[in-house]
């Protein structure tokens, strides 16, 4: 009995050390706390393309061929329109067509940025649409409520069911002698 526990102890310590080193190895990639450009808040990097004369084409609102073939190879939707970002230089927004009833078909999907000799392509996170278009789409000014009850309606239905189940189980446990 004692020997087995000792063996397990050594295995456990080894496992913890391995996991800790893995975490330290990964920690480099974790976004900084409060970083406005972190993947879950703003965008995720998809790919980077070497830069030749692409930025001139992008400035004329045209999509460079290399970028298009690269996106098609990886199975991403094709951008239909490129627009220069109003805030910064060397940044562009890509729009795609989405099949949604009752709303504008175009949606802001790609974020293209020039850095050094590369053209980096990012994909916008859902939060960006949530913040920018929520009021227009749902006519509710409260960002939390339209998230809770509309965009994540299924989730809230499940939460309500969980509360209902908790109540029913308390009734079943504590009210056994009387009738339900």
């Amino acid at each position: 009995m004692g020997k087995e526990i000792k063996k397990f102890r050594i295995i456990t310590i080894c496992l913890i050390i391995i996991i800790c080193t893995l975490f330290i190895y990964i920690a480099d990639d974790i976004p900084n706390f409060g970083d406005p450009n972190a993947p879950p808040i703003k965008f995720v990097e998809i790919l980077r393309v070497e830069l030749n004369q692409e930025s001139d084409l992008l400035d004329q609102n045209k999509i460079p061929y290399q970028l298009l073939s690269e996106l098609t190879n990886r199975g991403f939707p094709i951008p239909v329109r490129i627009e220069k970002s109003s805030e910064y230089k060397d940044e562009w927004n890509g729009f795609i067509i989405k099949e949604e009833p009752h709303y504008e078909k175009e949606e802001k999907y790609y974020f293209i940025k020039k850095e050094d000799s590369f053209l980096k392509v990012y994909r916008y996170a859902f939060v960006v649409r949530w913040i920018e278009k929520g009021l227009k789409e749902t006519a509710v000014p409260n960002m939390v409520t339209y998230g809770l009850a509309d965009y994540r309606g299924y989730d809230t239905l499940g939460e309500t069911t969980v509360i209902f189940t908790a109540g029913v189980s308390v009734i079943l446990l504590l009210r056994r002698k009387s009738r339900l």
Partner: protein
Amino acid sequence: MKEKERDVIVETVSRVMIPFIQLFALYVIIHGSGGPGGGFQGGVVFASSFILFVIAFDILGGRKRFPESINTTLSSIGLYIYAGIGLLAIIFSRGMAQYLNYGFIPFTSHFQENRALGMDFVEMGIGITVMAIIASIFFDLAQKNE
């Protein structure tokens, strides 16, 4: 069991407070889409008024004002309202199967306004369920001695 002592101050204050607590709970539920709040919070506030009543008066009076049969019915009715609104959305979207997409339910002529109104009804459903379940759990725990 020993007869409970009656306290004039506590009884009077809670007699004044309880209607206002319930009104505030309804306010929180109805204004869930405009300000802070919503179904969960409003339901808990409403249930707290029952708890205050039981603490200030007695549990049998509380049960008489909020009977067990109504309590059990309400706890499922809220969930039925929520799921029923989703079902209405399926019916009115005519074959597109948009479950819980409130925009298709024709409350008004605007798609966006429909979504806002659908959200309000859903919040009411959540509020009813949460209120009934919290009250039910509280009464079950408090009634154990009998």
